[in-house]
């Protein structure tokens, strides 16, 4: 294994789904259900059985809209307010209307959701305004349950192939180029429709631990989705709205909000005082978190040591078993116990991820990108605060629409020269005997991301970042070396990480205002609704560099009253409450 082989195979399918994490499997299932004759291929860089953000399971649905607890209108309103109004509501509203049906389907797959004594879903309040969090007592079964469905529906699963470029022709999608991660052999897939569910750009910033793979996101999500969409000419929206999360320091896993919050845990400063009213992740909340860290009252902690023993045990049972089960090992190694001390938290490195934030490949309420026949869903598409249920639901929208689209078209012709050019790009690092290994290219890119792009954002720093990224790119293109197929995968990832870093800098420089709290805090500019109440759309310009334009926010489906607009800026606990 890992020896570099020379080979290229071409296959055809009706619908190619790239990424078998969360959105991808649901897209494949829905496409096949709608058109049982369709040949659906689900391709993943890892193994679909255990790939993506939910590889070990999930603690709960963070954004469920369940009749009796919340209405689609309330949810759409809350997400709009949490994103400073820059939201095309149609996609959020459609999600809010249809996600309950998806919950019922997941329930039918054998994934259980918490119910109260009356058999009703036991939904918890974590958000600033509404009630949307539904715990999953057997969240560790999600992947297995999904995989069973894939087998049953006879979806063709292709593991350990990494997609590297999309193919286009006749003004629409034509397929994708993929590379085997263990042999470096090529697979060219012609498809009438392509659905992307490649997850977040999780390896953009460098964790403070310095460990390249110690990220919040599953590090196999290294930004190819964004990079491939960019090179194919698709539009990407609001990339300056970074993902930054409040995490357990060093461990870099989620701290508390959605599990411990409803049970009485909260984020506190070093004095044990609560300083934010609401632990739901948003740019405004992250700004308060950052301010507390800077204020001299930091560091910031997860506080559970005031809770009763049975509550702490229950929190441990969830947090140490399901989503990130090594968390217990981490606390044992540090000698920290929720009962005795508060647990240090920190601000994560930056990334792109609409699952928790808002930016990504631009899509409409059918998960269509700006390229006909190309869809995106989940963390890499720009529907804000989408989380796991959003990935499933928009994956479903994509699968259903693609099943219709493929019926109307034949394979698009593409230019064979594109495949040759990609072969040359991919294999270049294997043609050198020595040079710079991918881990050094990656480390340097990500270290520069931290130095110059981590908010608060400063113009001169971001311009320096662009200069330094260009130097790294030159080194990468002229000198990167890969000695086996596994290293080649890392080399290709280093290239997508660098593409994402360039896009992050460029998008952040374009929007000359501050917005979304810490996510786009540009210290030289205040919020400017007059000029910047709009999306920004990034595409690949004629010169090969990012080009930008403004795109109007679609008229709202659900109105927001003037006095509700800034609700997410009222997070700070006032002094009298904090002292209690």
């Amino acid at each position, binding site marked *: *294994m890992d020896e570099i082989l020379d080979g290229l195979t071409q296959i055809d399918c009706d619908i190619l789904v790239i990424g078998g994490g969360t959105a991808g499997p649901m897209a494949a299932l829905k496409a096949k259900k709608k058109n049982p004759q369709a040949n659906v291929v689900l391709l993943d860089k890892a193994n679909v059985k255990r790939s993506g953000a939910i590889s070990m399971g999930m603690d709960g649905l963070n954004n469920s809209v369940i009749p009796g607890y919340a209405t689609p209108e309330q949810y759409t309103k809350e997400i709009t307010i949490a994103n400073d109004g820059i939201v095309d509501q149609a996609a959020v509203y459609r999600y809010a209307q249809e996600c309950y049906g998806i919950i019922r389907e997941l329930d039918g797959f054998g994934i259980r959701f918490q119910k109260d004594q009356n058999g009703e879903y036991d939904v918890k309040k974590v958000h600033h305004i509404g009630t949307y969090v539904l715990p999953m007592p057997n969240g560790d079964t999600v992947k297995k349950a999904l995989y069973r469905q894939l087998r049953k529906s006879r979806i063709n699963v292709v593991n350990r192939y990494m997609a590297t470029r999309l193919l286009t022709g006749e003004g629409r999608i034509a397929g994708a180029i993929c590379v085997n991660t263990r042999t470096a052999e090529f697979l060219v897939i012609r498809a009438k429709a392509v659905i992307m569910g490649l997850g977040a750009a999780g390896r953009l910033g460098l964790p403070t631990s310095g460990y390249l793979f110690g990220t919040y996101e599953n590090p196999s999500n290294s930004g190819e989705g964004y990079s491939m969409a960019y090179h194919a000419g698709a539009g990407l929206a609001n990339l300056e709205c970074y993902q930054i999360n409040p995490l357990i320091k060093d461990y870099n896993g989620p701290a508390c909000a959605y599990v411990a919050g409803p049970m009485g845990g909260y984020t506190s400063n070093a004095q044990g005082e609560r300083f934010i009213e609401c632990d739901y992740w948003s740019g405004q909340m992250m700004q308060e978190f950052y301010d507390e860290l800077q204020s001299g009252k930091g560091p910031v902690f997860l506080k559970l040591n005031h809770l009763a023993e049975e509550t702490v045990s229950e929190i441990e049972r969830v947090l140490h078993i399901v989503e990130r089960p090594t968390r217990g090992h981490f606390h044992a190694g540090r000698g920290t116990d929720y009962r005795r001390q508060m647990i240090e938290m920190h601000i994560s490195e930056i990334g792109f991820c609409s699952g928790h934030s808002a930016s990504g490949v631009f899509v409409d309420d059918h998960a269509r990108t700006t390229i006909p026949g190309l869809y995106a869903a989940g963390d890499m598409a720009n529907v804000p605060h989408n989380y796991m249920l959003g990935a499933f639901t928009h994956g479903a929208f994509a699968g259903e629409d693609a099943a219709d689209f493929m019926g109307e078209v034949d394979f698009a012709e593409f230019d064979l020269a594109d495949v040759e050019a990609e072969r040359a790009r991919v294999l270049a690092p294997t043609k050198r005997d020595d040079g710079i290994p991918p881990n050094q290219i990656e480390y340097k890119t990500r270290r520069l991301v931290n130095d110059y792009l981590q908010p608060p954002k400063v113009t001169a720093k971001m311009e320096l970042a662009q200069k330094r990224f260009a130097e790294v790119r030159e080194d990468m293109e002229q000198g990167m070396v890969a000695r086996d197929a596994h290293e080649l995968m890392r080399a290709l990832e280093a290239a997508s990480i660098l593409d994402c870093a360039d896009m992050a800098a460029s998008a952040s420089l374009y929007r000359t205002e501050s917005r979304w709290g810490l996510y786009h805090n540009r210290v030289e500019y205040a919020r400017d609704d007059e000029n910047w109440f709009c999306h920004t759309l990034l595409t690949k310009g004629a010169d090969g560099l990012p080009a930008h334009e403004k795109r109007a926010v679609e008229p709202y489906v659900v109105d927001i009253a003037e006095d509700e607009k800034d609700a997410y800026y009222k997070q700070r606990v006032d002094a009298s409450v904090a002292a209690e």
Partner: protein
Amino acid sequence: MPLVQTATSVPVTIDDAKCIADKGCTVCVDVCPLDVLRIKELADGTKTAYMKYDECWYCMPCEADCPTGAVTVTIPYLLK
């Protein structure tokens, strides 16, 4: 720029005595999202799984899915 080998300790260990790679098992290698585990031959000719690349998300499918309980995941030293 010539390359050198820099040592690094890895977070995942496999108990050779429990590992049944010899019987054809490759479960941990198959499930790892980062694809960092491999099978090697030991001095006595038997086979075992091992961590080949220090690129781990300490996520645990390898340990959870191993049929014999041979895999132990710990926290990578840099963030421990």
